[in-house]
């Protein structure tokens, strides 16, 4: 893997560039809203006859769509009467952000150790399978059921991630290849299991697992009508843990050193292989928590495993981690932004009739623009970050 990619992500673009990237993505999103609007394109047909017509309908279409998005993600003034309703948008945003926080931390942690974990999908499916199995089979006393299912989920993800670390340390197998392959293994294993007698719900015509026992589900935090659940507390704990691990623990010191300069790490007496295994165990465990929050929480109404349990979160987590520069705090901010876009996107589709796919485009564009700071600087005519020109030429091939 090219060192420069890791350095570029960890150093990251300036906050200004990030903010401008988000603004630019929303701008492009607005254009798409106009193009996909049933009426606006027609009005541009007679633009020169009555430009006001086209412009005002454009404004209304974009304002309606983004207005609905804001209402769905942050606050809807129309709900001032009811406290529960006023908090609903925030609850939705947080609910969408929780799995992205776990996932982003997982990718970020592996990234800091110099590992590109593309295996989030596999690890979260492994976590979901274990959490679900524990959740519907363990008839332990009520208070223990949830912790047992959570731990099972973490262990499942950690084992699946740790396997990758072990393969890399023992045989030198590249983690990108191994994780991609293991994603397929997990996906197909999931399909096999939910059709097997051990998992399958006999009362459901679809291949779906038995539902998780009620005492093993993540309890709602603010009443049953708001979706936000105890996954939020887990997420806060995970962020604190990841921050401590990276910045204040000896293991985190090893992890960062191995990630930045393997050869210096080895010379300083660190075991590169052991550190990589630990990094993948921890990354897998965090990804397992994505599975936990899905199956014990909000993936579907009856808390069961389905073939779609992953919801693509293992991949979205990569973009969240990139946007958050692989740091715990940055990851939380990026996850909240993506959560708000998801929650707002659904409201936008429901009330303004704009396709939710626009949100996916906006999310992708944000990452694209963030990944290309020179483009953003060119568009907004910002000065280069180091002021100098042509630094590559000045440093040369080996610089």
């Amino acid at each position, binding site marked *: 893997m090219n060192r420069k990619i890791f350095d570029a992500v960890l150093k990251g673009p300036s906050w200004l560039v990030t903010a401008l990237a988000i603004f630019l993505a929303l701008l492009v999103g607005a254009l798409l809203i106009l193009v996909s609007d049933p009426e606006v394109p027609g009005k541009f047909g007679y633009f020169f006859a009555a430009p006001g017509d086209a412009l005002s309908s454009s404004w209304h279409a974009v304002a309606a769509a983004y207005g609905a998005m804001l209402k769905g993600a942050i606050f809807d003034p129309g709900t001032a009467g009811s406290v529960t309703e006023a908090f609903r948008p925030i609850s939705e945003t947080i609910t969408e952000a929780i799995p992205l926080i776990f996932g982003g931390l997982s990718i970020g942690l592996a990234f800091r150790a110099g590992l590109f974990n593309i295996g989030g999908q596999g690890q979260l499916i492994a976590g979901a399978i274990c959490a679900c199995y524990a959740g519907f089979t363990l008839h332990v006393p009520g208070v223990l059921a949830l912790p047992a299912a959570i731990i099972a989920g973490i262990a499942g993800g950690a084992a699946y991630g740790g396997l990758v670390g072990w393969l890399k340390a023992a045989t030198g197998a590249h983690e990108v290849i191994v994780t991609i392959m293991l994603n397929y293994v997990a996906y197909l294993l999931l399909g096999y299991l939910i059709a097997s007698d051990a998992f399958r719900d006999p009362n459901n015509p679809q291949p779906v697992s038995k539902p998780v026992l009620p005492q093993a589900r993540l309890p709602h935090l603010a009443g049953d009508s708001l979706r936000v659940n105890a996954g939020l507390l887990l997420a806060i704990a995970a962020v604190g843990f990841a921050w401590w691990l990276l910045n204040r623990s000896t*293991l985190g010191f090893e992890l960062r050193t191995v990630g930045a300069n393997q050869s210096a790490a080895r010379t300083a007496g660190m075991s590169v292989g052991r550190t990589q295994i630990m990094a993948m165990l921890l990354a897998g465990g965090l990804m397992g928590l994505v599975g936990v929050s899905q199956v014990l929480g909000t993936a579907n109404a009856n808390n069961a495993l389905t073939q779609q349990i992953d919801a693509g979160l293992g991949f979205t987590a990569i973009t969240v981690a990139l946007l958050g520069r692989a740091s715990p705090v940055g990851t939380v901010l990026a996850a909240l932004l993506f959560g708000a876009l998801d929650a707002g996107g659904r409201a936008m589709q429901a009330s303004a009739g704009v396709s939710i796919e626009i949100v996916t485009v906006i999310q992708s564009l944000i990452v694209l623009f963030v990944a290309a700071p020179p483009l953003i600087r060119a568009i907004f005519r910002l000065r280069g970050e180091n002021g100098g020109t042509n630094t590559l*030429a000045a440093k040369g091939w080996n610089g």
Partner: protein
Amino acid sequence: MTKGTGGGSLELRGITKRFGSLVANDGIDLEVRPGEIHCLLGENGAGKSTLMNILYGLYEPDEGQLLIDDEPLVVRGPRDAIAAGIGMVHQHFMLIPVFTVLENIMLGEERTRRGGLLDHARARRDVLDISRKYGLEVDPDAVVGGLPVGVQQRVEIVKALIRNARVLILDEPTAVLTPQETEELFTVMRALREAGHSIVFITHKLKEVKAIADRITVIRRGAVVGTADPSDSEAELAALMVGRDVRLTVDKPPAAAGAEPVFEVRNLTVLDESGRAVLDDVSFDIRPGEILGVAGVQGNGQTELAEAILGLRTATGTITLDGARLSGRTPRQVLGGGVGFIPEDRGHDALVESASVAENLVLDLYRDAPFGRHGSIDVKAVQDNAEQRVAEFDIRTTSVHAAVGTLSGGNQQKVVVAREMSRPLRLLVAAQPTRGVDVGAMAFIHERIVAERALGRPILIISTELDEIFALADRIAVMFRGKIVGIVPPETSRERIGLLMAGAHE
């Protein structure tokens, strides 16, 4: 384009370049006459490279003027510089490793026949002409990536000459060369001078300045502090360059004789991937308070020797320290057992450039008290340690939190030395302890090594700089092709050691 091979005169007037609040060049005046070797002497970070990058059009000066042959010249990029007859050989070569010598030389200056076809025959003829004229031996068809650095440098010089460079800038050209290659370069430089070319030779090595320069301009902290004559003594040049008197010799009391060896290496052998012995049956002892210097041309097994002692390479044979076996242990056990290690390539093996000075100062100490406790790192202890070391070792940094990569080479090396000497040692292994380090830092590092010797520690110094070996060693072991071909007293003549380095047996 101005053609012709005659020398050009070059003048810089009041060149100033700022990077933010840092003034890298402060009103620099410099005059290079036709047919002279003008030496630009300064410590690492004094602003030499910035100045040359301005001259080559890579940076734009904030103030000042450039004149060539008394005509004002505006250089907006390397293309302008080349057109004006300025050629540059960078410290890091600008060659494409997978291209042949000829292809690299033609790059950017492709000679074409009608129809846009590359005229290889003509280019080859030009290359051979130049190479014969100045003694720059190159094989036009060799692939650059496989050539020794000395030859790659020759390719760079040919590249500049084929573009009719009349003023040639050589940026620290000897940093990557062996003593023999340096001699060969000097021969070429003299031939170029005879032909009327002017050369700007950037360096911080005093011996070389005295050997080759016609005139010397010394810069310090971005400003010209004076001109000097090659007949001035090294001490005078060093004082001008560093801004204070510097001791160039190391005071060293005679070694304590008669003590029993505490560090013993027996029949140490390391095989490379293909099964060839890169370290071949090496045996030696070191007594307490003794410095054994390992001399030899780079690549004769010195690296492997150091790495085998540290446990970084699998080796056969035995290594014992204070009677306990060191061989077969992990690097962590070896370091934990009181071995200090200064690796030869600090950027690659000793430092994490993106990490802070404070973190680099505990890179192999973080596990143990007072820094690590129950898996947690005491940030306060790490910071206190850093502040103490920075003061004690005079490490010039804006803050202990600054990334170590932002420090100058000498200060980076001080970070490594400070870390490895900040705990009680039972053995010190130092490979190239002063590579790429300025005179001031070099004297300081040598003093610290001698201080460890005074404490009765056995010390192994590996260096390709014979001056360093002579300055420090109590006995000199010479390596050639993985073997120690002789262990001789420090009074041995340079010529004798040179012969051993070339493989003559005792």
